[in-house]
């Protein structure tokens, strides 16, 4: 197949680049090595929309973060993705850290972050009663918020696909050739041709760039582990609570999630294996210890799961979004670590602008920026539920009891543009299996629904593609 643009990597950056480019008369492929969208960094991070006071003024991180965060409420509305503007508090525990607050406030103001304010001890404990007594002051950032990172990725990618982008899964790029006019992008026996490539491969950006002879990027995989707690303790804190940053990143935070759980993490450890998302008991224990400095009441009692994600860190500590020096039709989008999620809407615009100004593509007349809101039975009133089940009985069968997810919602997730093909894909789109029993009851029903919809035997269904099958052969 021949495309104008091939985007390598269907994480949040790739999804937003695809969506922005789909405004134009271009033939676009979104290539993903896994079985689904948001399978790398975009499915395992803090889900924070940062206000933008961390990055050094003048850096791409600073510029795109503040712009992305400003765009986020509107973008989330168009994509029907929940966004909660809960604000963040960066807490100081000693005199020295008070200086950090001042420095970051000044930096934020230089970056154009709105509404920054230093809260004194009294005010701080009034707005966030769960905080440690020892907290002396905090930097309040009202423009910060929370979003579900994979839901945002799925929303943007679905919208892109509805506007003509082709999503090609299980396409692990292993070679790229250039004939002076077009690239040939290969994955095993499959290949596509394209005029432009966007390299949005996250921690693998360096390996993809090296395929065209660009050895300028060295991605360091920096692992972050998290613990997720039950919704019963979701309201422990009202805002995102940061500690003062350290050389490895923004430190351990405590926050609500947009779905009402409580999230604690991340750690920050540089690792060799770019697919290593193991959690380790010692790291999880140390995260909890660190987090308790902010919120002493935290315990492991309510932890329902833990997970790890990898940040694509670069030594320059900034995003690299530019035409490759090896080929100016190849655009690197590298080093997209925090605040990459916050920046994603702005990264999409930035990259789309680079390509469109180079190729001069015209805008489409029929671009639709809106993704229709998926049905969320659990959020409906009884009257709405009644009407819904009358219209479609599939919404009357509850599959996931912990999260109250209906058969109708699961079928919608499978049938959606770039829809779910595996159990984890259904889980990320609907929350089936994300509750306290973690899929103990609904897992097998989701497997059945997937098999039926995809027209395969139930032992073909995987947890997340590849060899992650759930069942073997039939019993004797």
């Amino acid at each position, binding site marked *: 197949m021949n495309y104008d643009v091939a985007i390598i990597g269907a994480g949040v950056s790739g999804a937003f680049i695809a969506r922005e480019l789909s405004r134009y008369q271009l033939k676009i492929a979104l290539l993903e090595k896994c079985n689904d969208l948001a399978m790398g960094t975009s499915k395992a991070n803090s889900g924070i929309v940062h206000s933008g006071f961390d990055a050094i003024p003048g850096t791409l991180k600073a510029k795109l973060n503040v712009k992305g965060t400003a765009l986020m409420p509107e973008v989330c509305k168009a994509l029907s993705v929940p966004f909660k503007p809960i604000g963040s508090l960066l807490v100081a525990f000693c005199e020295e850290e008070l200086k950090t607050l001042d420095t970051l406030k000044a930096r934020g103001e230089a970056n154009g972050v709105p509404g920054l304010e230093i809260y004194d001890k009294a005010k701080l404990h009034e707005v966030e009663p769960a905080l440690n007594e020892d907290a002396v002051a905090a930097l309040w950032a009202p423009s910060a918020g929370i979003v579900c990172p994979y839901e945002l990725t799925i929303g943007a990618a679905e919208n892109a696909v509805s506007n003509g982008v082709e999503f090609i899964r299980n396409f692990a790029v292993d070679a790229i050739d250039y004939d002076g006019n077009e690239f040939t992008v290969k994955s095993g026996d499959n290949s596509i041709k394209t005029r432009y490539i966007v390299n949005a491969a996250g921690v693998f950006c360096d390996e993809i760039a090296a395929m065209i002879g660009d050895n300028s990027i060295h991605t360091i995989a920096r692992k972050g582990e998290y613990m997720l707690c039950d919704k019963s303790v979701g309201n422990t804190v009202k805002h995102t609570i940061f500690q003062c940053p350290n050389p490895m990143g923004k430190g351990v935070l405590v926050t609500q999630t947009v779905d009402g759980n409580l999230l604690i993490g991340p750690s920050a450890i540089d690792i060799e294996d770019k697919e290593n998302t193991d959690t380790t008991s010692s790291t999880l224990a140390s995260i909890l210890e660190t987090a308790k400095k902010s919120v002493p009441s935290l315990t492991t009692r309510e932890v329902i799961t833990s997970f790890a994600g990898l940040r694509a860190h670069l030594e320059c500590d900034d995003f690299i979004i530019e035409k490759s020096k090896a080929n100016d039709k190849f655009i690197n989008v590298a080093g997209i670590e925090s605040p990459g999620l916050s920046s994603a809407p702005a990264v999409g615009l930035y990259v789309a602008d680079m390509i469109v100004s180079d190729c001069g593509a015209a805008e489409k007349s029929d671009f639709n920026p809106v993704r229709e809101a998926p049905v969320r039975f659990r959020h409906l009133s*009884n009257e709405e539920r009644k009407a819904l089940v009358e219209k479609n009985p*599939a919404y009357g069968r509850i599959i996931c009891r912990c999260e109250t997810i209906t058969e109708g919602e699961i079928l919608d997730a499978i049938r959606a543009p770039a829809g779910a093909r595996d159990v984890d894909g259904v889980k990320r789109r609907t929350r089936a299996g994300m509750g306290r029993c973690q899929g103990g009851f609904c*897992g097998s029903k989701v497997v059945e629904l997937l098999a039926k919809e995809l027209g395969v035997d139930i032992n073909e269904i995987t947890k997340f593609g590849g060899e992650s099958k759930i*069942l073997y052969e039939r019993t004797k």
Partner: protein
Amino acid sequence: MLNYDLVVVGGGPAGMAAAIKARECGIDSILILERAESLGGILEQCIHTGFGLQYFGEQLSGPEYADRFIEQVNDMNIEYKTDTMVLDVTEDKTVYAVNKKDGLLEIKAKSVILAMGCRERPRGALNIAGTRASGIMTAGTAQKYVNIDGYMPGKKVVILGSGDIGLIMARRMTLEGAKVECVCELMPYSSGLTRNIVQCLDDFDIPLYLSTTVIDIHGKDRVTGVTIASVDENRQPIPGTERRIDCDTLLLSVGLIPENELTKNVGIGLDRVTNGAVVDEYRETDHEGIFACGNVLHVHDLVDFVTQESQIVGEGAARYIQGKKGEPAYITTKGVGAVRYIVPQKVNIKNEGDVKLFFRVGSTFKNATVKVSYDGNELISRKRPRLAPGEMENVTIKNDMLKGFAEGGVIEITVEA
């Protein structure tokens, strides 16, 4: 809006026995709501035998045990709706439920029996380190795949936790051709029934490693192995005892949690140890007319006990509906030392019969004495050759004893080695 005298949430062994008893006590208007496709609850996937020894005096499989009650429900024309999920129960006993056929149901009840059962503790609650590969599931999920769907979830299996479902699945997977490498139990004793350890592990030469846990899970897509280690008296892994075992499946049987989400929504008080409602001897909660029985109240080891408990509840709900309850005068029950909990947590001293107190101990005992005292005076002393956390015990408080108690008093149960 529908109206029933009694709505039973859950059509497993608990809900059915309660409904049948209520009908026998004269309640005509009864509705059972069941979330699965058929009545019977978890028994439908328990195709092994061992059910009914206490209650029927014979060995039945799970489905056979359930069938005896399903038949009675049908013979008595007790109404039920399957594939129906209860979404909410309100304080004024309005039940909201949904299914494909009726859509959203709003049902007004005079009395509600909560019989939702329990769920298995998942991996996340254990915080086991390692990858997120497929091939990790609870023993009960594996049981459904094997017994209901007819598919094998793995071929080389390690089981963490020696709860009864884990033990049963060790045998079941072996019979289906899988190799069960071992069962690891964090505690120095098994929480399963002795008969299950003998019949499911010993008879198949499956090793049970006590004071051992899984500390790491390997494999990117599918599980390729686990690392196990011995633990010290504080349940912390002992360095140097780590050992890797190759396997493609890790089954978890690490505890059951009563499913009390609806109970919590009503605002009913829960016992921190049982994770079930605080109840009186009829298993009535602190909300008048709302009862609980079976594994949603406390996790039972034998379904026979669930049946007996649920019959008490059926009678209690009938008495409530018929206005026979009267004004109760409660004493409380209290487990001391090794006695982790007692159900019921309170007893009406005006009750006209004997009252059985069910309790569970926190560690194993040989030749121990169970003592019951009231306000410091010993009432009962019974020798027990063996007490174990996996086996529920009971003592009966005779009615004449009850008559001698005063409102606000406390009955204590202790165990002496």
